[in-house]
């Protein structure tokens, strides 16, 4: 039966027109060229236009976690976040034919997901307000929590709990950036920074700053010292 999500070692490796800023991002591994996420997204668009969907399937598998964490970082409830991510992929294929620069595909996905997440949050809050306005509303149980529940917290190791506590102590923007970066490759940091509203020039600095802040926080956390 299985048609999608076949994990394969074969990698698409031709047909991508590289832009200057991505050339430096190419990494080599034992002589084999590794395409970045951005390259693979670009390739998927070009292949998709020719009716070849395998690269697209791979890219959905690889980038869905990035989109998921980007959307969740905007405080979209889990169930709603599933719809948002699916909607982003649908929008992506609808736009694949007209996307002017395939190399911009990854950034397009990130920007679209972020906007869709805000829209989802806005609608969700509106719906909540309407629900609150209803007298004797028994269904309403407060805003949905985006924090892990106490059950989840219990399942976490001490090390995870310390890390979680310190990640939560970062400024919101840093939390978002660190979270998304953790699921992407290095070459995507530029796209992530742009999509999250950072200036291009401050990308490296911002990434470094956020990670450094986290490092500093962890260094002064006794709990981390014994685990890290």
């Amino acid at each position: 039966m299985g048609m999608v999500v076949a994990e394969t070692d074969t990698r698409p490796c031709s047909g991508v027109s590289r832009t200057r800023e991505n050339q430096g991002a190419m990494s080599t591994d034992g002589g084999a060229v590794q395409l970045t996420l951005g390259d693979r997204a670009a390739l998927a668009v070009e292949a998709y236009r020719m009716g070849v969907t395998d690269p697209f399937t791979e890219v959905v598998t690889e980038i869905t976690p990035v989109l998921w964490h980007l959307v969740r970082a905007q405080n979209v409830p889990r169930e709603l976040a599933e719809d948002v991510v699916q909607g982003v992929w649908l929008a992506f294929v609808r736009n694949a034919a007209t996307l002017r620069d395939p190399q911009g595909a990854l950034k397009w996905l990130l920007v679209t997901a972020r906007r869709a997440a805000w829209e989802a949050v806005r609608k969700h809050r509106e719906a909540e307000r309407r629900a609150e306005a209803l007298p004797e509303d028994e269904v309403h149980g407060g805003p949905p929590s985006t924090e892990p529940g106490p059950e989840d917290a219990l399942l976490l190791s001490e090390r995870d709990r310390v890390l979680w506590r310190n990640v939560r102590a970062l400024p919101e923007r840093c939390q978002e950036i660190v979270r998304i970066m953790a699921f992407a490759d290095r070459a995507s940091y530029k796209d992530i920074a742009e999509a999250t509203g950072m200036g291009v020039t401050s990308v490296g600095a911002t990434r470094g700053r956020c990670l450094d802040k986290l490092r500093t926080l962890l260094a002064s956390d006794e709990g981390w010292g014994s685990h890290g």
Partner: protein
Amino acid sequence: MAEHFEGQEPLLQDVRGLFRRVDPVPDGLVEMSLFAVMIEQLHAEAGTVELEHVETPELVARSNEASEREIVRTGTITFACEPVTVMINLSESPTGMLCVDGWVAPAAQYRVELYQPGARVTVDSDEDGGFVLLDVPEGPSCLALRRVDGEGPTVCTPVIEL
């Protein structure tokens, strides 16, 4: 698929591990996304031969929203789109999954494809348009039919929740 994390800073690896545990990507999200895209493609394809619209009986919702989709477990459903009519009869198979008996008119041999998240099954009907799909799991589903001789357009059903 871990290749793009090679060389990642250890602290980011820790962060990734943390978020995988506190807020994991839901099971099936990739498959559902691909399914939604596949259905979109299917419709776009049918659209190119001007048969995008498939008439559905009242029993089956037309919506792509899972919450508005009607759940169909047993009985007969008819789909019609001039000149093609598809009837499927659902029953429970001995394994507890679903058995889909179908007929297509006008009589001819059809290639029948059942799309579900993460799966696609293809069978050819007999020359009278009869086909059987055994052990079909429950879930959102879409049937696409093309005549084996290449005549006529591809027709597809709306997404139904089997």
